[in-house]
């Protein structure tokens, strides 16, 4: 296998890595690689920070191992190679009445990445996290295949789900699909006027899919205003997919400056009529709102951006409000800000979800934003919450163990699985995740 020396980045483009990548196209090549030069696996690089980067080292690009290996219509279990994109899987099966039970905000994430980050979707309060629907994983450890599942090698399974690729290379997995009525979604959008209103709307929603867009520039009495989206899957006639668009170059630094974002957010808020509205859309639109704008990360310019995402327990809602105040006062937020109520569901020792509220906000990569994100991280930990590794690019090692109480159990499995540390990535190094505390 030839190695390609290249520079690559996470989706936020604020962190970069230079290293050598192999891109196997056959399982046999992957097994050989895993035996001869074990390295962390990476996918579509849709996580924001450095969870999929290995500066100065090697990594295995899994995107060419993207085949559907089998589907059993009795059980709804589909077996796929780790490089299959979740959106591709959704589109292939939705018209036949099956859908991945959990889909993250982008359809371009690979199944391997969905497992290794134990991603969640807009239905987390109903369906839990992605890892909870994984029936089996084929893991490669130094060229040896190991089959793991919730019952078989359960410890290793729980260290692999949400385990950031540290237990081995995920070659393929069996996912329990969910029956669905069709490939359309009935989407109801409602304006929410303030923070209290948002929490009670999220608490009271009975929809399968629910997510809030927040105007993170609104202050004072309008703090926490936004739009609640609630969706249910249905059948109908799809108007066709429409053409994807491309951001052809890096935008100038003022493209997402304070005044532009404030104006955009105000217009976006008023886009939905005061009385709300209901529409029927192809399933991809509400699931993957930004996927039709390819390379939208270029809107942040060459310096890139950071996404801050935390979850705090239900009782920590006030802390979250204070965090949003800080963000609004800073004037640094971008239009992309999301609030959602999560359920308890989580699949692994290092999984992000916990019952509570999660807030995600994008910030252009500037010194003031970096300082602010540091504060927000401390506030999350103080509130008994945690930050999301798939998004993080800035945190330090200090409070990881506190935020992730199962860290030691994860570490025990990982040390057995990869004693040499061949699978360590930049994020794992930065946060000292492989060191005992």
């Amino acid at each position, binding site marked *: 296998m030839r*190695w390609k020396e290249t520079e690559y980045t996470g989706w936020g483009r604020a962190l970069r890595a230079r290293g050598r990548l192999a*891109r*196997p196209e056959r*399982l*046999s090549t992957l097994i050989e690689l895993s035996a001869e030069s074990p390295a962390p696996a990476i996918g579509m690089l849709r996580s924001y920070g450095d969870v999929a980067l290995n500066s100065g080292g090697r990594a295995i690009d899994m995107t*060419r191992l993207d*085949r*559907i290996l089998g589907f059993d219509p009795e059980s709804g279990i589909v077996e796929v*190679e780790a490089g299959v994109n979740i959106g591709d899987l959704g589109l292939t099966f939705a018209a036949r009445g099956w859908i991945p039970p959990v889909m993250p905000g982008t359809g371009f994430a690979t199944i391997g990445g969905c497992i290794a980050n134990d991603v969640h979707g807009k239905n987390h309060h109903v369906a839990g996290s992605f890892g909870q629907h994984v029936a089996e994983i084929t893991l490669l450890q130094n060229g040896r295949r190991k089959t793991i599942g919730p019952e078989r090698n359960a410890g290793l399974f729980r260290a692999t789900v949400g385990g950031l690729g540290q237990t081995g290379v995920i070659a393929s997995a069996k996912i329990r699909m969910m029956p669905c009525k069709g490939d359309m979604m009935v989407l109801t959008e409602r304006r929410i006027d303030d923070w209290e209103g948002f929490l009670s709307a999220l608490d009271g929603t009975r929809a399968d899919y629910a997510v809030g867009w927040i105007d993170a520039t609104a202050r004072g009495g309008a703090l926490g205003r936004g739009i609640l989206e609630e969706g249910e899957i249905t059948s109908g006639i799809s108007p066709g997919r429409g053409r994807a668009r491309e951001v052809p170059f890096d935008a100038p630094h003022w493209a997402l400056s304070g005044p532009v974002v404030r104006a955009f957010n105000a217009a976006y808020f008023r886009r939905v009529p005061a009385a709300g509205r209901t529409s029927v859309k192809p399933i991809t639109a509400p699931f993957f709102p930004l996927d039709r704008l390819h390379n939208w990360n270029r809107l942040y310019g060459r310096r890139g951006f950071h996404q801050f995402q935390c979850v705090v327990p239900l009782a920590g809602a006030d802390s979250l409000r204070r965090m949003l105040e800080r963000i609004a006062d800073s004037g640094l937020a971008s239009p992309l800000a999301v609030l959602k109520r999560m359920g308890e569901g989580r699949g692994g020792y290092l999984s992000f979800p916990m019952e509570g509220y999660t807030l995600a906000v994008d910030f252009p990569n500037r010194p003031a934003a970096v300082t602010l994100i540091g504060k927000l991280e401390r506030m999350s930990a103080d509130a008994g919450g945690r930050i999301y590794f798939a998004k993080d690019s800035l945190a330090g090692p200090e409070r990881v163990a506190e935020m992730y109480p199962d860290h030691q159990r994860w570490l025990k499995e990982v040390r057995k699985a990869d004693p040499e540390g061949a699978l360590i990535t930049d994020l794992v190094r930065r946060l000292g995740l492989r060191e005992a505390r």
Partner: protein
Amino acid sequence: MKETWIILGASSSMARALARALAGRGAGLLLAGRDLEDLRRTAADCLARGASLAEAIRFDARRPETFAPLIARAEREDGMISAAVFVGSMPEQAAVDADPPLLEGVVQDSFTGPARLLQMLAPAMEARGGGTILGVGSVAGDRGRVGNYAYGAAKAGFHTYLSGLRSRLARSGVHVVTVKPGFVDTAMTWGLEGMFLVASPEKVAADMLRAAERRRNVIYTPFFWRWIMLIIRAIPEPLFKRLSI
């Protein structure tokens, strides 16, 4: 109309992309190559994506005894039989220079093996009066370059063969397309120095199917390689032999 495609060298990423596109329109697929474990995975993928038939079948360009069973399998299906040829091998020219017998393998993989199979398949296609052959050559076959002339010569032979086969089969309604890809983002080019304007396998597959539909004879993919190769072919030999392109 029911269609069954023989795909030679079906483990390559270009072949996989073509197989996937054909699966999406419900075609039957005979995925032929040496790595059966890998081909079975591709077959499963094609079935999940809508193929009416997808089987992994052993084919080795250097073992002619594998040819007849493959053709017999295709003949068991009714409707039109088509074929797409992706086989070929490209050792580094320096390796061939150091070990001349390697040349025979290159020629067998890239030219005589697939040509012999098509020669055996042609009567069945003539008898059914339709179908398409998509033969993948290479821009490397348009002129012998110092860095790649063993592979280039084999592909040039294949181009000439396809040209003649096109004339023969046109008489019975079978269409032959010669496909000349430039740089494609495959395992063959991954990490090679000097790659530019690299196309995705999906783009090449889409171009190939469009060419089949429009009954084009010779295509370059992406299209601009036609102009690049026009220039390269126009360089006078006294000058060309001094260049290291």
